[in-house]
């Protein structure tokens, strides 16, 4: 039997890879994909919890997260399109309109 902790560690590793991708990639689409990684990492933990604790709530949460991820992807990508139209770039470090 695989211990729960392994899943948690796996989840943590994937999560941190996602964080790394988000923090360092210039391409905003890849940054976006990194966010999907983060969500998936969380899902892994949730499903694992659900299995080991014999409780359905973890999976229900996972289902909701997938729903939200879908919505988020749709909106996020639409924003990227709008952004790309206005700015002509997909590189996050070239966008600094909000600077003080």
């Amino acid at each position: 039997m695989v211990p729960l902790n392994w899943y948690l560690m796996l989840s943590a590793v994937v999560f941190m890879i996602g964080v790394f991708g988000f923090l360092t990639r210039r391409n905003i689409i890849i940054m976006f994909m990194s966010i999907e990684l983060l969500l998936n990492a969380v899902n892994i933990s949730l499903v694992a919890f659900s299995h080991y604790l014999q409780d359905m709530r973890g999976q229900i949460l996972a289902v909701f997260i997938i729903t939200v991820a879908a919505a988020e992807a749709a909106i996020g990508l639409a924003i990227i399109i709008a952004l790309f139209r206005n700015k002509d770039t997909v590189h996050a470090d070239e966008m600094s309109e909000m600077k003080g």
Partner: protein
Amino acid sequence: MNNYLLIPFLPLAAFLINILFGRKYLKDNAHWVSILAVAGSWVVTVITLLDVLSGKVVNEDIYSWIVSGEFKVSVGFLIDQLTAVMLVVVTTCSALIHIYSVGYMQGDKGYYRFFAYLSLFTFCMLMLVMANNFLQLYFGWEGVGLCSYFLIGYYFDKKPASDAGKKAFIVNRFGDFGFGLGIIMIFLTFGTVYYEPVFSQAKVFAVQTINFLGYDVHLMTLIALLLFCGSIGKSAQMPLHVWLPDAMEGPTPVSALIHAATMVTAGVFLVARCSPIFSLSETALMIVALTGAITSLFAATIGLVQNDIKRIIAYSTISQLGYMFLAAGVGAYTAGMFHLYTHAFFKALLFLCAGSVMHAMSGELDLQKMGGLKKYMPITYWTMLFASLSIAGVPGFAGFFSKDEILWLAYSGQSPVGKFVWAIGTVVAFLTAFYSFRLIFLTFHGKFRGTYEQEHHLHESPKAMTIPLIILCIGAVASGWIGIPHLLGGGEHFTEFLTPVLGHPEAHGTHAEEWLVMAISIIAGFSGVGLAALFYLVKTDIPVMLAQKFNATYKVLWNKYYVDELYSFIIVRPTIWTAKNILIGVTDAKIIEAIVNGIPKGIGEFSRILRKVQTGLLQRYAAIMALGVLIIMAVMLLR
């Protein structure tokens, strides 16, 4: 409802009708409303006068005007002998001048406006003289000032006219400043502003002193002088006389009504009205007398050299007003009032004649361009001649009796400055006769000096103008006959009539002295006339020669002692300069705004440093956030 209420409110109604409907509906018929109203007032005045003659004095409140704490004042009316005299003067002059204006203002585009203002003025003046308390007096006081402002600036599209109107109002405000404070002092002293309790209690405070702005002053002197400030402004006495000559920019009927016969005499009326207060302060009376004497001399000297026909009469008005104050200052209030009453007739007449001359000369005012008008306008000539005889104090005419009474009472009264002001008065009598006849001779005698068109155009004025002239002329000649002194076998009815209000003036002198004073004043008058005749009829080159010889003096007189320039230099310009350069430039801009804008600016500087952190880079923010999570977790673990 008493019918005396009609006296002020008829003209008010006329004003309202004219101002509301005049422009669109009445137009050239506007005068009917005003004339009817003023004539109505006059009729009621006569009835009221008869009542007063039979001893009936009215003093009642109409409605409560202002109530605040212990301060209570009503709109109320007091009709006693003094009021009655003023009522007669005001309504008579007003009615005649309304009629005169029909001819004079014919075809003016603001016809309705002119009559509306005249009626409003009449209303305010009547409110002034009929008040039974100081605040209502103040209401009328400011009201007549306002109408004066309107009417001086009647030709508002001309800059001098609008300047003069404004000047009159503001200069008067200086006087009213004192007047207002005087009323406040009266309230604080007596707890009321009604005449009756104030005058009856005035003696209680006769010796009291009060701390005013850090100085201990005699209470009654303080109140009297504060009130006198108002008089100085309204009656154009030194040093606030500057507005009256400029006020001649207004139409001539206005000059006659407001700036000769009625409004400017309100100051004298005020002093007479407050005689119970003034009588309690020798200092105040002395100041009144000296102010009047000096002003009358001062204005008369300026009048000697002016060439503007209306301005000469204006200076003469100032001078005569000075005479009235001189009288009041020596305690001869009745004499002052008497002169006020006769002066109203002959001075209004002088102005109206001047207006008639202007009418014929197409608005020309310069004496040097006139001459020989006698044959073209005989009525004007004769009426003006009678008016001038009256003002010059030729025996038998109205001016003689009032002037003589003043001089005699100044000479014989108890005032410490009596003899001094008598001397000045006599000199002024001489000067008055001189400049009055200089005016007559330059205008009506000799050769015509104007342009050909003007000469061609000369004509006598229409009936609407000449009839008031004739009526006023009767007044200028005969109005003095009700006050013929005992010495000449008269009854001094005028003085007797006013005695209940103003008291009987004291005279300490022998008949011989009285004869002497009278003789001196007659000589002064005749020599003035004679000198004028010499200068302007016989040897016309003398004035030019004198002007050249005493060039400096002539210049000072011609420029009216540079008073206007002085005021402009010490008051007007520094104030505006301060406003512009110090208040706007330094206080507001450099001090207050610097502090006010400095604080936000400091905050702005600080935030300019802080905002460097806000790079706008998404990942930078995310990294910092992650770092934050890291630190928090590390702290939690290490604890």
